[in-house]
């Protein structure tokens, strides 16, 4: 019984079965994620931060295969640093998203990761881009990962254009909390990153501080 379970652990790929979300608000974006990384049925990391820095005011949220997602994020981080030195100023969010899209599209047969890119730049303010399977699309908000299916209805109903920063953060935390309570592959703590003109602010919300709903 013991041998069986360790074998299957090593054989199954480490996936960030996950819930990730990014939402634009008036003057910036808020990104949120859960913290569970699973290999088959085992949780191999219960506190992983899936919000990765691409540049000072551009972050990406990782989902899918953990290795693929992390590698893409590191490559784009490097490419963006070079790019921002070349142009002499902070890169645009669209540039970061395009770099992610280029890798996702070129290697779409080999990779299985979905990154949501979000940030703030001077030209466009807060922006959220999805790069699923190599497509590039700007959206007012985006959800991803296995837990996202359970909260499509909730985000469709509750999203409003031009929310304030606090409302946006509450919306993100509520969404992640609902997804974590239904999706077996999402759990742990919630990480939040708020990006606006002034910079990026990271926050971690522990399990017992998450909002609860009627049956909890």
């Amino acid at each position, binding site marked *: 019984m013991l041998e069986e379970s360790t074998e299957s652990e090593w054989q199954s790929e480490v996936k960030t079965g996950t819930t990730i979300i990014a939402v634009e608000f008036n003057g910036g974006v808020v990104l949120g994620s859960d913290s569970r990384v699973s290999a088959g049925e085992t949780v191999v990391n219960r506190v992983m931060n899936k919000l990765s820095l691409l540049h000072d005011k551009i972050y990406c949220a990782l989902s899918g295969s953990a290795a693929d997602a992390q590698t893409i994020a590191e490559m784009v981080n490097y490419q963006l640093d070079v790019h921002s030195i070349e142009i002499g100023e902070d890169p645009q969010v669209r540039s970061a998203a395009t770099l992610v899209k280029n890798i996702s599209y070129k290697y779409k047969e080999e990779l299985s990761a979905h990154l949501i890119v979000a940030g703030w730049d001077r030209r466009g303010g807060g922006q959220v881009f999805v790069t699923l399977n190599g497509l590039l699309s700007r959206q007012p908000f985006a959800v991803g990962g296995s837990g996202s299916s359970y909260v499509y*209805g909730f985000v*469709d*109903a509750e*999203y409003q254009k031009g929310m304030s920063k606090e409302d946006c953060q509450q919306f993100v935390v*509520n969404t992640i909390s*609902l997804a974590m309570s239904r999706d077996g592959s999402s759990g742990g703590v919630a990480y939040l990153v708020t990006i606006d003109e002034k910079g990026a602010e990271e926050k971690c919300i522990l399990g017992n501080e998450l909002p609860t709903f009627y049956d909890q």
Partner: protein
Amino acid sequence: MERHYMDSKIKGVSTGVSNVNYVCSKTINKLIQVHDRIFCCIAGSLADAQAVTKTAKFQISLHSIQMESPPLVKAAASVMKELCYNNKEELQAGFITAGWDKKKGPQVYTVALGGMLLSLPFTIGGSGSTYIYGYTDAKYKPDMSREECLQFATNALALAMGRDNVSGGVAHLVVITEGGVEHVVIPGDKLPKFHDE
């Protein structure tokens, strides 16, 4: 009057039926009446579901005649459960049984794919239900009034139909109370719209 509404049960289903990627019918009613105050929502393979509900309807009628009183909702749900569990290899359908009886008032039961029977304050099912778990968890509160309950069910259906490509068409709702049964039908264009529509 207040209590009457707070005790009513509302069931809603959308109507799309599809065969692989072809939609056979946009207007099927998936709410089947198995007795005066007991309805079943069907999901999954509709052929299986229709066969099971026809059998269950007959068995429940017979049971009610033998007991000389209207059947309990739990009894109806148990009949569905027996059929699903004993034929679990062949069947691919899930049911939500809800209604009103004199003993316990309004109740909701769900019979899952393998034949598990659960009693719950509210439940959702079918392919479109995955998209609204978050919404229903967040928005459900106990002891809603009739109007609130109708609005909750309508919103949930509209959101699911907006995301699931095999749900759609018309929304059927049924309000079951001690006093009787009321059908509400909402065509697709009259459903509530959300931010992106």
